[in-house]
């Protein structure tokens, strides 16, 4: 209490375009502790740690490390100051050997020549320490490409450790690890703590926090809400602190209102019925959706939401299960077939998947429905195309200079509306949306979801995957919570609140802990044995 903390970050602000990621966050942590940073998706926890590691330059705010100000221009500067980070996205070079990856950037050597022996000497102790995580072997000279995803993550951790950090950041580093690997990691983290290293730990798994962490800072909406000592607060309270919306908060209201009249009216028939859908990242998903319904896909990130949408649209392989659309089986093997069957797909990555940025607005809006207007399927009339595009633009409320301007000249929100609007002329019956509001500001988001509701009211079934629980509560009639490629909960009506969604996503992990405890009494760790193939698929997408 008396001594100043080892690490202090104060008043950190960061905006990405119209989105505020950090709004004056404060953070302090002591050496020799394991400190968890918790919060829902989009609460700013990752951005905060990226500011610390120099990956992201803050708009305002100070970082003091060991009493000295840290103003990194690049991750290299923070490395020199002793901050080392492990991210979910790997930074390994696949064609290099493990040892070459470990010493990359800190190669020992003289006169510009590499000293292979010194490099081995530096890398070997850590690899030997982690040998149980590699199934007992020490893969010094193996190529990273030959390792499975879990092993690569361990190499990534070793890479951070080889740099002898004073601060070690683990950002969801356990997500793709097997239980055995997590155990070794936790042992090592314990040793580091005893040596006075500060370990910052981001995770969605509540059980890992109680098992490993001393302190926890809860982030919400870009600021720190509270810092608590783990063990003194019940888990339920942690979940409440994270969600921050007590029952009856404004965000919860609309869903309940919408749900009410439906009970009185005769429910429309089931439009889409999915049974035991399986594929990469999917382990038997079943659900139904009615015409006019907006169905959400929630849960932790990367639990099969994107894979489910891609699989329904024919953009990902399907290995099992049935999909009935209006009673008839559909099995699109390509998006082309899916579009013909009446499906539409709105990706969240509009630059990469939703738009041809350099092409005119006109062509982007026309693309999915070209065949419908073409004479003999070939000839196009400019007047017809323009009229169709103007009609769509009016419906989605896009402002533009000229339809011939490249679509990249539009604002992010208007671009995303084009990604949705281009499907209108195909008259889709099922609209699949994968995080459609990613990276657009609040106003544009509201307008875009108004378009979504309009689609639903015109009789389409809309499925929305989102990493933002608030968004799901505001837009959806019903939300499926996914975990490891399965539907584990269905939330609707009065239960549809941010609180429930966060708890639902978290409690699954706790249920797994309970299962793991009965399975293996010696272990205090959650069962997170990932299917390596599925994990690889996740990383590929």
């Amino acid at each position: 209490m008396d001594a100043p903390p080892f690490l202090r970050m104060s008043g950190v602000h960061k905006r990405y375009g119209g989105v505020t990621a950090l709004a004056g966050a404060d953070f302090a942590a002591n050496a020799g502790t394991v400190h968890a940073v918790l919060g829902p998706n989009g609460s700013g926890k990752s951005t905060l740690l990226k500011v610390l590691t120099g990956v992201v330059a803050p708009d305002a705010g100070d970082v003091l490390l060991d009493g000295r100000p840290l103003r990194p221009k690049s991750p290299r500067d923070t490395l020199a100051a002793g901050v080392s980070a492990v991210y979910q996205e790997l930074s390994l070079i696949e064609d290099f050997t493990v040892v070459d990856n470990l010493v990359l950037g800190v190669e020992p050597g003289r006169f510009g020549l590499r000293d292979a022996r010194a490099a081995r000497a530096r890398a070997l102790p850590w690899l030997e320490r982690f040998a149980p995580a590699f199934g007992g072997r020490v893969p010094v000279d193996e190529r990273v490409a030959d390792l499975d995803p879990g092993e690569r993550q361990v190499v990534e951790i070793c890479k951070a450790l080889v740099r002898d950090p004073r601060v070690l950041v683990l950002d969801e580093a356990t997500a793709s690890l097997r239980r055995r690997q997590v155990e070794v990691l936790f042992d090592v983290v314990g040793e580091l703590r005893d040596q006075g290293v500060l370990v910052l730990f981001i995770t969605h798994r509540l059980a890992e926090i109680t098992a490993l962490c001393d302190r926890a800072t809860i982030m919400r909406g870009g600021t720190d809400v509270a810092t608590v000592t783990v063990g003194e607060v019940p888990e339920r309270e942690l979940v409440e602190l994270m969600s921050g919306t007590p029952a009856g908060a404004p965000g919860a209201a609309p869903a309940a209102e919408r749900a009410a009249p439906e009970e009185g009216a005769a429910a429309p028939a089931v439009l889409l019925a999915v049974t035991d859908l399986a594929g990469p990242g999917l382990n038997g998903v079943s659900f139904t959706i009615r015409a006019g319904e907006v169905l959400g896909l929630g849960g932790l990130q990367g639990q099969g939401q994107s894979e489910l949408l891609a699989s329904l649209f024919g953009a990902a392989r399907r290995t099992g299960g049935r999909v009935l659309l209006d009673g008839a089986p559909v099995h699109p093997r390509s998006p082309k077939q899916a579009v013909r069957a009446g499906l539409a797909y709105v990706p969240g990555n509009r630059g990469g998947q939703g738009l041809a940025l350099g092409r005119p607005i006109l062509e982007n809006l026309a693309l999915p429905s070209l065949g419908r207007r073409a004479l003999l399927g070939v000839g196009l009339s400019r007047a017809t195309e323009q009229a169709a595009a103007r009609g769509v633009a009016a419906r989605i409320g896009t402002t533009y200079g000229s339809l011939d301007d490249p679509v990249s000249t539009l604002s992010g929100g208007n671009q995303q509306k084009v990604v949705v609007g281009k499907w209108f002329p195909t008259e889709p019956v099922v609209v699949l949306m994968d995080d459609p509001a990613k990276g657009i500001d609040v106003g544009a988001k509201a307008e875009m979801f108004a378009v979504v509701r309009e689609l639903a009211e015109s009789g389409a079934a809309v499925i929305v995957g989102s990493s933002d629980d608030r968004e799901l509560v505001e837009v959806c009639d019903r939300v499926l919570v996914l975990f490891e490629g399965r539907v584990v909960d269905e939330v609707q009506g009065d239960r549809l609140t941010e609180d429930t969604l966060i708890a639902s996503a978290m409690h699954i992990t706790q249920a797994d802990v309970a299962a793991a405890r009965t399975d293996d009494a010696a272990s205090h760790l959650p069962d997170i044995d990932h299917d390596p193939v599925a994990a690889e698929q996740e990383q590929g997408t």
Partner: protein
Amino acid sequence: MSAPVTGGPTPVAERPDRGTRARALLRDPVLVSGALAVLLWATAALISPSFASWGQVVTLLTLASFLGVIAIGQTLVIIAGGEGIDLSVGATATLAAIVASRYMDGANDNLPLSVLLALAAAAVVGVINACGVLFFRVPPLVMTLGMIAVVYGFIRLYTGGQPAGSAAPLLRTLINGDTVFGIPGVLWLWLALSVLVIWILRRTSFGWRLYAVGGNATTAYLSGVNPVAVKFSAYVLSSLFAGIGGLLLLGYSENVFLRLADPYMLPSVAATVIGGTALIGGVGGYLGTIIGAILLTVLDSFLRIVQIGGGEWGDAPRQIIYGAVLVVVLSAYGRQKRLRQ
């Protein structure tokens, strides 16, 4: 759907002022290339007044037409993106000319059949290119470069090293025959093909899909377009147009030789790129390629006029300068492409 939408959003009133519009014109590759071509032509005319004569202009355009037709397919393949390029157009054109001349054998009887056979042979090259690039994931540069060797090897086998036959008289008349004002038939053919290609690119669903695939193949795929089919068509069309170019060359030169269309390989890429079709794909059009083909032909003639080369060195210095200009132009446009990204 064709009724004008009156309640639509009012277009944002943001007209570019005169300055930015002038700058946009300066950046328009078609205009810049066109201006350069005129400038070069004017300079050449000053040095050698006969250059400005009507007959010389027609000759220039006639020479440009072969490059222009061979570059049609190049334009399509480059627009389709994915590092698309077809270096085998020269070899394919030669193949078509050799097949056609053998079947024509200087008579009109077999003209339709020989044209069909020549185009079929060209299409086979296109199909192989497309399969290599799309199904076996060979980079287009490597695939089409390799195809050059394969095609020439085949030509050697087919002809035994000595091409047989000659162009049908009708074909020669079609290409070289005077129409009006001394304009040979080949220029009207080029005009017709140009109108066709520009219509395909601007007013058909295939054209729009081609631009979409070149602009962003993932987006096109997720919008229900089959990018493989679109690119496949682009490669086959490229070889077909190269084949047509070979037939035009055959009619023009009457006899064939083993390296007939060889000199068109790199210029076809250069004409396309100079005309504003970006190597990243999804940008450009055939109008620019026409200008590019004319510019390159004027440049070549200009170098002849100022009599670089000749004498004891023969053609070599002219070739070196022409090649150097191609490299400079290509790298200049390559840089512009990176800025735009």
